[in-house]
């Protein structure tokens, strides 16, 4: 308990809250992501005591992951990959004039998901870590394929088109140096391509620029404000929605948390799997994607819960749960902390402080997130033509800023055109970007696994966890097909 109260000290609170505000701003701006927010805050933490630095990092990550949903909902541009799933129903709700409700729901679910995730972290860390330890290349391969396939299946359009989009993403991910052999693939002699195609500029182009193209192609509402509806929502109505979806919130948070606990799998996979599960298990499954509450609740609780999960392997094993915790672990080592099983004994007080900070961050998130929504809504009251220009220049600068590379700005252009063409032809965008992100994970685990087994594919199917995920995958793809055959069969044999 001492640890809990110790965090309410000015020297910790002030930078902590300031970094949360920064997280909202950076996460909510199209072109800037949650990982960027964390990466940018870390150097600022070096002058502080460890607990203040960690509080800043925790605060900024939770806020940025939530804030990524703001442009996803209002502009159909995910602020960060974990918000990819929020685009589906969030934007549809905005089109129905319910954008503010969507975000209020989003915020509440993020906070609840975050709290559930942390609760699981505190209670279950060792057990979950045991489970995570069982995962080797074979399981990681299937998990990544599963998460990716989820996004392909549940996106709008036919399953085939979803798979095409996902495969395109995987193909793009192969451009660059092959990690295992060091051989440059599909680089056609270009030095920039040797480094591969960055997923952030690709994401900005695919979602941001293509949306700008779509908007400018029909310049009817150009001079009108981007968002016209009010932000007065009663918390009572949000409360009612939350109440009738208690089970969904809990389930999504747990899914998000478990996936976050797997090293390398973070909020983005968590959000998609949760969305996919919710859609399959819901009575209103076919309404997903048209702007319904479950479509918001599932991914937004999951992605914040996943953050809590990513700290499990980080604290218990010193293995990052995702890119954000990878950065955090680096920072912790600079403070002289050694994450791992011993950290609970040697730095028990600090660990409790971390848990306390995580919990209180959720409360702060509720307030700061709310202010962030209002701030962004005021920004979006500007006429559409101005907002689009601002989005465009932020996207271009955001891409340039990553590596001080104008090549990345070119990537935005190429993917912007690609995204536009894809959408015109019914090909969904999220699977492509997820394929780009997960491609290396899928290929590396496949090949390392094959090296381990000396070329045999058998362990990919015989290991229990691998087999389970594989069966889930088959059900996912072909379940409807077999169900259809089964129904026809039983009808023919009926009375």
């Amino acid at each position, binding site marked *: 308990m001492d640890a809990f109260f110790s965090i309410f000290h000015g020297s910790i609170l002030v930078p902590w809250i300031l970094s949360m505000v920064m997280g909202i701003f950076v996460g909510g701006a199209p072109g800037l992501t949650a990982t960027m927010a964390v990466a*940018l805050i870390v150097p600022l933490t070096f002058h502080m005591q460890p607990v203040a630095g960690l509080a800043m990092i925790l605060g900024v990550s939770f806020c940025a992951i939530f804030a990524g949903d703001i442009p996803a909902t209002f502009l159909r541009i995910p602020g960060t990959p974990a918000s990819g799933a929020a685009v589906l129903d969030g934007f549809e709700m905005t089109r129905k004039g319910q954008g503010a409700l969507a975000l209020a729901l989003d915020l509440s679910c993020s906070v609840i998901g975050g709290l559930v995730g942390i609760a699981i972290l505190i209670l279950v860390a060792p057990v979950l870590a045991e489970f995570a330890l069982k995962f080797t290349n074979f399981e990681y391969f299937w998990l990544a394929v599963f998460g990716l396939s989820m996004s392909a299946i549940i996106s709008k359009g*036919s399953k*085939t*088109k979803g*798979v*095409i989009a996902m*495969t*395109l993403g*995987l*193909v793009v991910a*192969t451009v660059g140096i*092959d990690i*295992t*052999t060091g*051989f440059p*693939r*599909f680089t056609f002699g270009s030095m920039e391509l040797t480094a591969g195609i960055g997923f952030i500029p690709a994401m900005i182009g695919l979602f941001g*620029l293509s949306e*700008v*193209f779509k908007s*400018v*192609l*029909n*310049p009817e509402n*150009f*001079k009108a404000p981007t968002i016209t509806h009010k932000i007065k929502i009663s918390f009572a109505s949000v409360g009612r929605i939350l109440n009738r979806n208690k089970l969904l919130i809990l389930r999504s948070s747990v899914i998000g948390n478990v996936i976050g606990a797997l090293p390398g799998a973070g909020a983005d996979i968590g959000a998609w799997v949760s969305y996919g599960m919710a859609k399959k298990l819901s009575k209103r499954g076919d309404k997903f994607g048209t702007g319904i509450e479950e479509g918001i609740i599932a991914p937004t609780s999951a992605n914040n819960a996943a953050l809590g999960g990513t700290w499990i392997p980080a604290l218990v094993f010193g293995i990052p749960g995702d890119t954000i915790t990878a950065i955090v672990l680096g920072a912790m080592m600079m403070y002289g902390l050694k994450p791992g099983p011993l950290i609970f004994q040697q730095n028990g007080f600090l660990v409790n402080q971390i848990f306390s900070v995580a919990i209180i961050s959720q409360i702060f998130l509720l307030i700061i997130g709310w202010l962030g929504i209002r701030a962004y809504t005021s920004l979006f009251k500007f*006429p559409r*033509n*101005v907002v*689009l*220009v*601002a989005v*465009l*220049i*932020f996207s*271009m*600068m955001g891409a*340039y*800023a990553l590596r*001080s590379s*104008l090549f990345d*700005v*070119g990537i*935005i*252009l190429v993917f912007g*055109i690609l995204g536009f063409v894809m959408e015109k*032809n*019914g*090909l969904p965008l999220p699977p492509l970007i997820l394929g780009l992100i997960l491609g290396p994970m899928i*290929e590396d685990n*496949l*090949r390392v696994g*094959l*090296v381990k*087994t*000396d*070329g045999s594919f058998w362990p990919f199917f015989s290991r229990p966890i691998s087999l389970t995920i594989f069966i889930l995958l088959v059900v996912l793809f072909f379940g409807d097909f077999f169900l259809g055959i089964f129904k026809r069969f039983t009808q023919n044999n009926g009375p």
Partner: protein
Amino acid sequence: MNKIHPDHLIGLACLALAVTIYWVSAGFPTLTTGASELTGPSFYPRVLALVLVLCGVLQIISGFKNTDEDRKLNFARLPAAWSGGGVGHVLTVCGLIIFFIYTLEFLGFFITTPIVLVSLMWRFGVPWKQNILYSMVLVAVLYLIFGKLFTIYLPSGILEHLGL
């Protein structure tokens, strides 16, 4: 020509891409130990190529099965859909992005960016007074965020040579 459905084109594009991948990856080296072909650089791209072939075929089949009249490509209709201010806007955006890429380092951030902003807003119909005001504000905001907060190097371009 009226029977061509966009799905056919998607399918063909998939097949074309698959063939390209397969052909380019033929030039990748293969390892000579252990599970050589399976863990070399060409294995995985070829698996992807295979998936693309499958999808391409499914798409082409779907193109034949799909009787949605609206989606059938009618080449005579296309020019009508592309007229109007919209396409000009798209081309302006593309053109200005290319301009940005080629001039940012030469002209510098403080010349290229305002040019891009003012041109975009002009093209999109923002009144001049607001145009200049918003552009100035945006340049300042971008400078503060990227140049100062994120400490990204923003090229000075020719301003440097002028001693500014």
